[in-house]
């Protein structure tokens, strides 16, 4: 009750401030007059009575202040006073304010950016119904943790599960063509990707538009609780193979290409020559469980009608079809569902013992878009560590600025203390100043972060062809992220404000008033903390820079690695002409292929053309179990294949000569062998060593694959041979992964009818990239509708994961590191600058006593060099530990790269010394007379 009363009276006092002041005034005036009247009644003359009353009463203003105190509002008053004073101080020192705000804003901005991405990926629940109970069901097998189920298996789980309310499937995507819509294709210039060193392959679309179409089960939208923007979304009835095919458009496509025309619902669209009815439109940016907005959504039943889909893909238990999602029923925990589905998996294994793709199940929560699993955590930890280091540098920087300023404010603080200011009040005021800086920095850093994110997302979006669909990374302001920024700002404000504030308060009033700031003993004790801050900045900055240098040099090395074949004079042409969407017959494709090779080989500047099932270093890696012919392959269907797996590709006889892969012994294929796909094989040296160490492998026999071996991709049969004769051995190359030589690799003879998508390799006499337009128009002459992807092989190298991770990691950390270097230089600059100002008197004496200018310069620089060198040593030690850790994750990184360590350290010292030298010159210009009169 009493407490409530106090709050009430406090609120009244605060909210009706002016009224309270008026009343207080009236009351005190009344008192004096009434008292004077009382005196007058006892016979004192009126004027004298008033005078005596005033004297008796004492200081009116002091009484008022005490009354305000009694109401508990002086705290608010002083807060506002301190805020006003703090703002005035910040305005008075624009250089200091700008530096501190800039430093912190960078730290906060970068941290907010990182947190936003982290949040979007790992923390924010998916925008679906009941995300907390959403689970994903994956097939597990040896070497596969998040595999896809076949369609019949999915149906079995869906119909038998009792722990999950329903099961929906997402069954991948395909590109479809339509003559009905013309997609406005923007000319995308991915500037950032280009600047980072990635060269995206040229895509010539041909005469048809291709749109991404995603396949989902009929209950998918119901399960995720999606609502249509127009029309309706799928129902389970839509997903039956007898039904007339239907399709749902994405809101993004509807908006950007169809001007949100609601009349589109119910109309017919031809996809790959099949008529589909558009039944509805999803909301804009609706992604369901995907990461990108597709253009079209189709039921899984329509899969055989579109793209590379076949009936088999829905019936064969050996063909992976998709990922399964469901909701846990009320009261069911994740392990319960896992246990139940495991039983179902065992039933399937027992029921279909011949199916190779039998395996286990894994149920995981799909609450968020991604999760930080074991593989991703080092990357996340490294990123968060790097941005945290930047914030540390920023805070140390601002702390040293404040510290330096506290030294120059000693006199002011001394004066205020001697005039009776309370230490608590002074502390409050100093803390408010630093909190103000932090808040202003937070306010600057937040838009900075969103600007960066927006730029990134726009860049990513523009780098993606429109028919791939739109990116829906959420970068809209989030109250949690704003809270995070403000919290960081406040914490850093208090953290960096407290130390200098306490330092400033330890002022001895006497010496402060005498302004003995240049007394040697005191300066030493104070500069120890300042030195420590420089050490922290230099060390943290060095850690960032050294690691970014290691990563960048790693990515450089990836580009310079000799993969063992010619990358500079070879263009990779991927012709996706056999897509069923093109509707070409087998005979026509064969003819087209011949025409193309003829046309291209006639071009000037082209020295050779060959064909292969895959180009080296371009993904699409395929593996097959292999052994000597006495190692028995497992019987059809049952048992595990225990033989090692080898990468393989089908090639034409001139493949090796064209790519410059030397044949070590034996010979290449004959044309005859290639056309008939005879039982011959060419192996790499490593393969020869593995199977026939110390022997001549030529003429030996290899057993490759097994009968009905699992298909690497739907529609592609796996190689199978009981005994292929080794006719040649070729030099080892890096065709699978850039960071290591292929362990086992087979080359099989290619007949031109084998592959559905044709990969041509073209050898040029000059630089391959200069011939891209010529090649493009040659393809157009043969068939204007053929979609083709063109890229010189050395461009493909830049898509190697080793290169990508090193390059992106290196670029990101060098941006952060450059910011850190900038901040650390600001810190050194400020520190040396202030120490020169502080020591003007001392320098004056030294110079009056005959010290040379160079000696004075050396004196000032030596002092700043000590903490810098100390920080360098710590930074190198920490970097060595961290880079060792990174190199275990990123194979191929040299953790002891002397150039990175020495070069970056020297660069940092040089830049930091320069930052110190700039203000140190002022010390040389000190005029002894002026300095001594300064007292």
């Amino acid at each position, binding site marked *: *009750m*009493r407490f409530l*009363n*106090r709050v009430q*009276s*406090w609120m009244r006092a605060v909210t009706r401030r002016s009224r309270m002041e008026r*009343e207080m005034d*009236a*009351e*005190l005036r*009344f*008192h004096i*007059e*009434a*008292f004077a*009247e*009382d005196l007058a009644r006892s016979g004192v003359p009126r004027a004298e009575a008033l005078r005596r009353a005033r004297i*008796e*009463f*004492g*200081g009116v203003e*002091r*009484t008022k202040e*005490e*009354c305000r*105190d*009694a*109401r*508990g509002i002086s705290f608010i008053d002083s807060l506002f006073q301190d805020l006003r004073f703090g703002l005035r101080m910040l305005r008075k020192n624009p250089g200091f304010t700008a530096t501190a705000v800039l430093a912190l804003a960078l730290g906060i901005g970068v941290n907010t950016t990182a947190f936003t991405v982290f949040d979007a990926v790992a923390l924010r629940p998916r925008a679906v119904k009941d995300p907390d109970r959403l689970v994903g069901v994956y097939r597990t097998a040896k070497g596969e943790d998040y595999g896809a189920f076949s369609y019949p298996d999915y149906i079995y789980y869906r119909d038998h599960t009792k722990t999950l309310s329903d099961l929906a499937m997402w069954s991948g995507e395909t590109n479809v063509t339509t003559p009905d819509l013309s997609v406005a294709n923007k000319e995308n210039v991915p500037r950032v990707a280009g600047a980072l060193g990635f060269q995206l392959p040229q895509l010539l679309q041909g005469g048809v538009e291709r749109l991404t179409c995603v396949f989902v089960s009929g209950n998918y939208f119901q399960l995720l609780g999606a609502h249509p923007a127009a029309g309706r979304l799928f129902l389970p009835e839509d997903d039956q193979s007898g039904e007339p095919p239907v399709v749902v458009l994405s809101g993004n496509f509807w908006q950007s290409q169809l001007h949100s025309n609601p009349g589109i619902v119910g109309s017919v669209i031809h996809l790959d020559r099949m008529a589909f009815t558009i039944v509805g439109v999803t909301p804009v940016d609706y992604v369901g469980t995907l990461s990108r907005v597709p253009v079209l959504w189709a039921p899984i039943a329509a899969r055989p009608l579109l793209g590379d889909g076949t009936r088999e893909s829905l019936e064969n238990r050996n063909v992976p079809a998709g990922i399964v999602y469901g909701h846990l029923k009320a009261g069911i925990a994740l392990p319960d569902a896992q246990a139940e589905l495991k039983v179902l998996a065992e039933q399937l294994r027992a029921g279909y013992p011949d199916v190779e793709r039998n395996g286990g199940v894994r149920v995981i929560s799909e609450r968020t878009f991604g999760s930080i699993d074991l593989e991703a955590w080092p990357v996340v930890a490294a990123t968060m560590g790097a941005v945290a280091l930047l914030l540390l540098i920023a805070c140390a920087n601002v702390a040293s600025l404040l510290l330096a300023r506290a030294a120059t404010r000693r006199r002011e603080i001394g004066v205020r203390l001697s005039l009776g200011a309370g230490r608590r009040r002074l502390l409050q005021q100093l803390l408010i100043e630093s909190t103000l800086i932090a808040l202003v920095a937070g306010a600057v850093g937040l838009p900075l972060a969103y600007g960066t994110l927006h730029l990134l997302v726009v860049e990513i979006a523009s780098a993606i062809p429109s028919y791939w669909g739109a990116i829906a990374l959420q970068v809209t302001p989030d109250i949690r992220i704003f809270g995070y920024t403000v919290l960081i700002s406040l914490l850093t404000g208090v953290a960096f404000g407290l130390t200098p504030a306490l330092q400033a308060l330890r002022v001895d009033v006497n010496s402060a008033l005498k302004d003995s700031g240049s007394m040697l003993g005191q300066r030493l004790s104070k500069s120890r903390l300042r030195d420590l801050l420089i050490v922290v900045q230099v060390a943290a900055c060095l850690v960032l820079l050294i690691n970014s240098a290691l990563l960048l040099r790693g990515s450089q090395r990836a580009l310079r690695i000799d993969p063992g074949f010619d990358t500079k004079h070879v263009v990779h042409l991927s012709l996706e002409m056999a897509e069923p969407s093109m509707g070409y017959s087998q005979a026509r494709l064969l003819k087209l292929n011949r025409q193309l090779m003829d046309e291209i080989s006639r071009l000037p500047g082209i020295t050779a053309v060959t064909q292969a099932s895959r180009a080296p270093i371009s993904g699409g890696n395929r593996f097959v179990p292999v052994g000597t012919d006495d190692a028995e392959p497992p019987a059809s269907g049952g048992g595990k294949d225990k033989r090692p797996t080898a990468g393989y590709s089908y090639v034409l006889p001139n493949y090796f000569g064209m790519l410059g892969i030397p044949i070590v012994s034996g010979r290449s294929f004959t044309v005859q062998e290639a056309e008939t796909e005879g039982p011959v094989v060419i192996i790499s040296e490593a393969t020869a060593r593995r199977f026939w160490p110390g022997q001549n492998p030529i003429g030996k026999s290899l057993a490759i694959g097994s009968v009905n071996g699992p298909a690497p991709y739907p529609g592609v049969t796996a190689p199978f041979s009981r005994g292929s004769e080794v006719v040649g051995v070729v030099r080892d190359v890096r065709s699978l992964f850039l960071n290591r030589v292929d362990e086992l690799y087979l080359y099989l003879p290619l007949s031109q009818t084998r592959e559905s998508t044709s990969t041509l390799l073209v050898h040029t006499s000059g630089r391959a990239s200069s011939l891209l337009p010529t090649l493009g128009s040659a393809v157009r002459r043969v068939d204007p509708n053929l979609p083709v992807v063109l890229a010189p092989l050395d461009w493909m190298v830049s898509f190697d994961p080793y290169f990508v991770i090193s390059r992106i990691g290196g670029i990101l950390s060098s941006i952060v590191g450059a910011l850190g270097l900038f901040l650390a230089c600001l810190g050194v600059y400020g520190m040396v600058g202030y120490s020169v100002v502080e020591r003007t008197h001392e320098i004056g004496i030294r110079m009056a006593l005959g010290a040379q200018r160079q000696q004075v310069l050396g004196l000032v620089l030596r002092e700043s060099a000590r903490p810098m060198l100390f920080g360098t040593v710590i930074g190198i030690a920490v970097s060595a530990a961290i880079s060792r850790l990174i190199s275990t994750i990123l194979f191929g990184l040299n953790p002891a790269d002397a150039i990175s360590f020495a070069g970056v350290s020297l660069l940092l010292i040089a830049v930091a010394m320069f930052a110190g030298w700039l203000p140190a010159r002022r010390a040389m210009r000190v005029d002894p007379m002026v300095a001594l009169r300064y007292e």
Partner: protein
Amino acid sequence: MDKKQMELLQGTLDMLILKAVSLGPLHGCGVLLRIQQISKDRLEIQQGSLYPTLYRLEHQGLITSEWGESENKRKAKYYRLTAAGKRKLQTEAEKWNRMADVIAGILQSTPEEV
């Protein structure tokens, strides 16, 4: 004014104010005059310290105030005791009396009693 006034003991002004307003609503000056009148001018009260104390007591909810008219038809702020103030006055007065008894007893003690 009588120069033989006693200075107020620390912490007793609260009690005296509460007592003064318990006899009927008073304005600030009235409180002062009433205490002086009852004490027959033997207590010296710093006029400046009166108002902060009044404000504090009001803040604590022991007294309330309202504007009214003074004897000579002028607007004045009148203070009145609240129920909480009444209880506070009672306990403070009891405490004071007990304390005074104990101290008086100690001061009156003779060597024989110890």
